[in-house]
């Protein structure tokens, strides 16, 4: 079975400051990893994904994430945030074979302050 832990339920940060949202996962099989963003009253949109290859992946809106297999982490970073980045962020994993089941973390609310 897989599990995803997002330890920070809320992260306040000032505009133009850097931010890191943490994601750790547990799995006995290899997984694909994803970060999604949810703006108020909207569905989830894909920010970026790690399937294989380079452990540093770049996504939309200036976000990037680094896959660390030894620490089973997939932290999301942005060097300079904007007010418009205020949203809920979800980390998710899915086994590379077998089940189609995606496991989501509990989400991190990023609040960007002026």
């Amino acid at each position: 079975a897989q599990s995803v832990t997002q330890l920070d339920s809320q992260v306040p940060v000032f505009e133009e400051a850097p931010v890191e949202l943490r994601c750790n996962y547990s799995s006995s099989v290899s997984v694909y990893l994803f970060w999604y963003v949810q703006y108020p009253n909207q569905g989830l949109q894909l920010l970026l994904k790690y399937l294989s290859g380079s452990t540093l992946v770049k996504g939309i809106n200036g976000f990037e994430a680094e896959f660390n297999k030894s620490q089973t982490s997939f932290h999301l970073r942005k060097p300079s945030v904007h007010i418009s980045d205020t949203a809920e962020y979800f980390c998710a994993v899915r086994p590379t074979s077998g089940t189609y089941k995606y496991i989501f973390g509990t989400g991190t609310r990023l609040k960007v302050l002026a």
Partner: protein
Amino acid sequence: DTAVSQTPKYLVTQMGNDKSIKCEQNLGHDTMYWYKQDSKKFLKIMFSYNNKELIINETVPNRFSPKSPDKAHLNLHINSLELGDSAVYFCASSQKGGEPQHFGDGTRLSIL
């Protein structure tokens, strides 16, 4: 052109009623999902269909019944609605391999 569309967007109804939510995807994906998001934003998978076949059925009350008439559609019927059913229900679809899920905008269900 919306990739995953759900109807209705809002649903307000009384306890004990029966209601349905419809979902359609035009991405050509083989797999579709229903999720429930509670007031704390926790996203819980309910069901998944692959090519009209049920492949994931989580611990969900049997008042909830999914139906997939074809691989582009996955509907959710809920009988005897209860207060605890109030939530946002999301439909999603995906393809094989590393393809991520694509989500609809959600159906906000409120039980009075």
